[in-house]
């Protein structure tokens, strides 16, 4: 490829274009890039846009401006891995910041996972999720259903239904908004015996991957949530975050308050520097392992129903979700 600095600017320009829902002109792109710390003028933007057009990555719509082509979207997904190495954690931090659910007034946004299922499987899926929810394999019993033709921000492929479930990263949002500096650490597979968690069998850090750890474990079919529900023994998806040990008391309050909103799933708060179920914790910090919200969806997959899940997908007003 060409000069890496040019490549970087090309990618940033495409990112700006894809963030809007209509075509955008060179002038607005230049303004947005300046906001982001790229000192680049309108003229230079035009120059770069011509390169993008030539490569078939963007398309001009008269005076309205440009949009990114399918090829461009693919390029955005694949390019600059060096940046995207931190992508999973960066995107999660973004959503943690956007979580504004107020535990007192019980309103505001929580983070959700989105799962697409086939329309025909809907009744079965709801039944399994109800069962999983009763057994505690879910963060909150509240879900939201999106159908294909609905007018909303959520894209639902043809013939599918999308189900939003509360994501465990919501806890990180709640902790942050209570002034606790929280660091999502790992996603993993947690083994349970007689309803008690015993150890993580596998872990992937949110920090060293370009693919979401929970998504990885789901597609490896490594859970046995149904077994846990039936016998108390099996494997579930869990993740872990770390907080400063001095914030443990405050974090306890937050977790207790969250329960009043029906938000559950935190297993415990560890002692300072205490490894939890085999997962290491930094000195001076405490770990909080949480059984994640998509366990209910993993249970659905275990029955052989096909589901496509996007963990940590977006934020959603909690009051618009209702009990399954």
């Amino acid at each position, binding site marked *: *490829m060409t000069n890496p600095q040019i490549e970087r600017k090309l990618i940033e320009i495409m990112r700006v274009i894809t963030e809007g829902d209509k075509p955008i002109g060179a002038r607005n792109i230049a303004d947005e890039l300046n906001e982001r710390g790229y000192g680049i003028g309108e003229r230079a933007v035009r120059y770069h846009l011509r390169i993008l057009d030539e490569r078939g990555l963007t398309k001009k719509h008269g005076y309205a401006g440009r949009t990114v082509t399918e090829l461009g979207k693919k390029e955005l997904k694949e390019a600059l891995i060096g940046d995207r190495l931190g992508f999973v954690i960066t995107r999660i931090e973004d959503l943690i910041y956007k979580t504004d659910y107020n535990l007192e007034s019980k309103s505001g946004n929580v983070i959700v996972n989105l799962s697409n299922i086939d329309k025909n499987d809907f009744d079965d899926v709801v039944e399994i999720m109800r069962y999983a929810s009763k057994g505690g394999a879910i963060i909150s019993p509240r879900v939201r259903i999106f159908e294909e033709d609905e007018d909303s921000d959520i894209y639902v492929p043809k013939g599918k239904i999308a189900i939003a479930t509360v994501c465990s990263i919501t806890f990180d949002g709640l902790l942050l908004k209570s002034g606790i500096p929280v660091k999502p650490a790992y996603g993993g597979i947690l083994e349970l015996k007689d309803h008690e968690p015993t150890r993580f069998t596998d872990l*992937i850090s949110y920090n060293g991957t370009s693919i979401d750890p929970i998504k990885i474990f789901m597609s490896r079919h490594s859970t046995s949530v149904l077994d846990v529900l039936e016998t108390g023994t099996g494997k579930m998806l869990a993740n872990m975050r770390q907080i400063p040990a001095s914030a443990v008391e405050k974090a306890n309050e937050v977790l207790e308050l969250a329960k009043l909103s029906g938000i559950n799933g935190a297993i415990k708060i560890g002692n300072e520097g205490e490894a939890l179920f085999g997962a290491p914790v930094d000195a001076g910090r405490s770990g909080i392992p949480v059984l994640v919200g998509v366990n209910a969806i993993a249970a659905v997959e275990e029955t052989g129903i096909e589901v496509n899940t996007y963990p940590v997908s977006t934020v959603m007003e909690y009051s618009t979700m209702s009990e399954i």
Partner: protein
Amino acid sequence: MHKNNSNIQFTSSKIEDLMFKTTFDPNTGKGDVIVNVSFIDEKSRDEVFNIFKMVLTSGLSVTPYVKILNQGDLIGETVIEKGKIGIATVCSITIDGVLLKAGIPIKPKLGGIVQIRDGKPVRFTDVLTYASTTIDPLEVLMSQKLTSITHVIRTSNGNILANLREGPMAARDDIEHILSDLVDVGFSGILEVSEPNTSILDVPVERDHLGIVVIGGTNPMAAVQESGISIHTNAMSTLIDISELIHIDEVA
């Protein structure tokens, strides 16, 4: 594998363990190499062997050598079950072991998907660092259905599995000598060596280090999986003496 009270082992520490145990010497062509072991059903034998032949002869592996294991054979601590066949291929971490034994502080960094265009590596499109995962990154990526090995063989375009390590710039000459010795004894999977302080296939390297990208030993397994045949792979399983391996062309 791990005791109940001890911390879980991340891939990076497992790798160091295997590198330490590597005794293969490219000058004598003797010693132990690290292998990936896969298990298949006996009935899919012919199909799987054909895919392995295709992938290994096109160079999309570390070496063209394999070991076939039949029912009752022992590899590492595993005995091949009834109705199953085991296939061992050389794992790319062997190269790190050889460099280590030559006194070079080599750091395996990550595994990922490398995009191939017109037969040339273009960039990493997805990666997992060894320090961040307890499952081998290439095993993880295999399960994400991101590879297109057969497509690469047919059209020279697509996605393969590869991994990256870093070595100090000061050891550059030694590294280059050893890599060329390895090529001489059939380690054909060395994909790219970067200039110091320069990104390699879009991944930045540490200051005063150079990057080395090697084709993953599990590409043939990924190709089998792409064709819909069930295959179970344990990457970086164990070490075996290289004299136990045979060239894929000699497999009947």
